[in-house]
């Protein structure tokens, strides 16, 4: 309770100043970027890389504040309720904004109304890969195999309602096959289980790239619009099932109500940082991430599109976390 009142007081206090002095002076003190996962994972590293570039160019420290929990809802809630002054931002993956609202019965905040998109940062795609002992060498062969195999082949995902899970469900629908869902704690463990032969198929992202490169997993397809530059020999799922695409992305967000000049300044800084080559290269290693530079309109359209897409899958599958 005390915290709530303090927040309200601070908010009221700040809003008096907000309009007057912010636009010219911003930023006049350190900027905080909340990150929805613990230190070390790809989004965290991306946030730290961006923060470093930004603090060099705006002349104020940009601090990373990791607030993991509830698939990003903890960080999202903290950001949505912070003062909309451009000093509290959040770097989050798409799942918080476009999937959580569908799977959580009680969302602490509205991911569309309470959150102002600042800029997209990077995108990535998933790999659909199998244990090397699986007979299928190509995606069509795998679909044939899956149709014949009873009981259904087990597939590993990064958790119930995760993008890995939903991406695979979309693929199952398109290919008309059945696979048994076995959830793990994240894409890494899911990939490991497939290497060990506990599950036979896995749909996961960068955490599996090392396993693919080492031949511990056989990549059948990637889920992006175009082939991954890291693995140009692996076709996309879309080449067989046109229109299928699962692209995951990271974005920078601010509380709704943040003044437009502040958002524009931040967007400029992010885009400036993203167009530097060394940053692009580092993002690539951290998680096979490709810088994703969009106009504000494009970014908003992307959010709307994915929000609808996942909403439909979740309804079809009946995934829920309440």
């Amino acid at each position, binding site marked *: 309770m005390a*915290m709530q009142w303090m927040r309200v007081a601070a908010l009221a206090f700040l809003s008096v100043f907000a309009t007057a002095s912010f636009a010219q002076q911003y930023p006049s003190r350190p900027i905080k970027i909340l990150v929805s996962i*613990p*230190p*070390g*994972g*790809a989004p*965290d*590293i991306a946030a*730290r*890389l961006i923060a*470093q570039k930004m603090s060099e160019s705006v002349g104020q420290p940009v601090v990373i*504040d*990791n*607030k*993991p*929990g*509830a*698939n990003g*809802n*903890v960080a999202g*809630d903290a950001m949505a309720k912070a003062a909309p002054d451009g000093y509290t931002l959040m770097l989050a993956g798409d799942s918080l904004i476009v999937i959580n609202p569908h*799977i959580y019965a*009680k969302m*602490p905040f509205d991911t569309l109304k309470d959150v102002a998109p600042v800029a997209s940062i990077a995108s990535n795609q998933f790999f659909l890969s199998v244990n090397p002992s699986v007979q299928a060498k190509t995606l069509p062969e795998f679909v044939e195999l899956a149709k014949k195999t009873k*009981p259904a082949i*087990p597939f590993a995902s990064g*958790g*119930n*309602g995760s993008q890995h899970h939903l991406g695979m469900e979309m693929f199952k629908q398109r290919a008309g096959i059945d696979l*048994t869902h*076995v*959830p*793990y*704690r994240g894409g*890494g*463990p899911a990939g*490991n*289980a497939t*290497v*060990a*032969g*506990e*599950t036979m198929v896995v749909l996961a992202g960068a955490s599996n*790239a*090392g*396993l693919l*490169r*080492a031949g*511990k997993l056989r990549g059948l397809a990637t889920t992006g619009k175009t082939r991954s530059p890291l693995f140009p020999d692996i076709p996309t799922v879309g080449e067989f099932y046109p229109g299928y695409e699962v692209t995951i992305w990271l974005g920078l967000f601010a509380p709704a109500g943040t003044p437009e000049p502040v958002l524009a300044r931040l967007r400029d800084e992010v885009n400036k940082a993203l167009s530097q080559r060394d940053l692009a*290269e*580092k993002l690539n*290693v*951290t*998680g096979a991430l490709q810088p994703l530079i969009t106009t504000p309109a494009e970014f908003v359209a992307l959010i709307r599109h994915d929000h609808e897409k996942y909403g439909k899958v979740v309804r079809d599958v009946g*995934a*829920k*976390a*309440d």
Partner: protein
Amino acid sequence: MELLDNLVFGFSVSLTLQNILFCFLGVLVGTLIGVLPGIGPPATVAMLLPATFYLSPVPALIMLAGIYYGAQYGGSTTAILVNMPGESSSVVTCLDGYQMARKGRAGAALAIAALASLFAGTMATLLIAIASPPLSRLALKFLAAEYFSLMVLGLVGSIVLAHGSLLKAVAMVFLGLLLGLIGTDINSGAERFTFDVPMLGDGIGFVVVAMGLFGLAEILANLEKRDRRQIDPSIGTLMPTREEFRLAWPATLRGTTIGAILGVLPGGGALLASFGAYAFEKKISRDPSRFGKGAVEGVAAPESANNAGAQTSFIPLLTLGIPGNPVMALMIGAMMIQGISPGPQVMTQQPELFWGVITSMWLGNVMLVIINLPMIGIWVRLLKVPYRLLFPSILLFCAIGVYSLNNSGFEVGLAALFGLMGYVFYKLGCEPAPLVLGFILGPLMEENLRRAMLLSHGDPLVFVQRPISAVLLLMAAALLLLVVLPVFRKTREQAFKEAA
């Protein structure tokens, strides 16, 4: 001699002036931060991770590894001195280490911990050099069924931890299991016992529970004893006596073995190492009643196990790219930021990194002892600070430590709640260690049980058909018999005496 070549090559990397310096820096900073109550290895590594961004990969990883085992050792120091485990593996160090400190043997306990760690570290480094490839295959043999059986064995072992009532220990394990279920159910995605609080969505952190049940409850217990100081302020000799050495040495050997093997298993393996080693010592001891009252073996075994396990947990990371625990996950992040994608190819494509880091671990362990032996005198003198000044300071560091895990004030409040619970347990003669073990193992056990059943299409025979799993279950059954039989006899005798 490929092994020798590899080690020589490794030392040629780790013994450069620059790398020695970073190793030393890592170990020193790790110890100093890790020694603050409430701040264990994961928090320390997370806080210091950004500091390595500007280094090149080899020194960066050498320094991080140094921070890791430096913090691990520092965590044992607080476990011994003030009964505050900074992470899961030092929970058991509290049991006898703190009791030794209360008897004025804090110096000896710290020295034993340092020396046992050095021995274990040396052995584990050799083991990594010799047996990384076969051990990494062992890690792949452990699937859901094996993990479940290992967890069962761990839970039965946790009952051995208790030195009081067996029934109450079992009940505490159950309560720990139940508390461990709080949060999102991994298999169905449903949230359990979260009261719609998003902060509870991922469950309660281990450090929150340990800080409350051990740290805060200990402070409360001490405060009600007024000025009757808990700890014998006479320092005595800092060095262990000949008798203590005689007891500690074989325990260290056994602890190292148990720790080195369990450390290889990703997820839960390393957690069990120190518990397992402690339970084993207690079981084979001629006089198990000494445990929990300051038995030297009760410090040497878990300390060596936890250090050996800490080192061998690098095996799945470096050979398979599988992080075995949260600190290893941070290491993956550190590697990625350096432009290295962790995985099996690291050993062949970047041998200087692989062997350099491994040999630096041995180096770091030596430095750890060199740094810490002289510091023991300072740590022990800390206990001479009047408790009225010491305990508010501990409270503060404890609270900051808990906060820094997830930058969450909510978790600090939760720790206060667990402190209250710990006080109730203390009043009712219930020991918290079995609860903590149940709390750690519970979610893993359920997750693997349900996964194994899902994969076997509901056939429970999978647990006995797979050989490793069957052996583990048999061991659990045998241990259970060993624990339960003598107690039944004793309770009956007691009951008869009552009636008479």
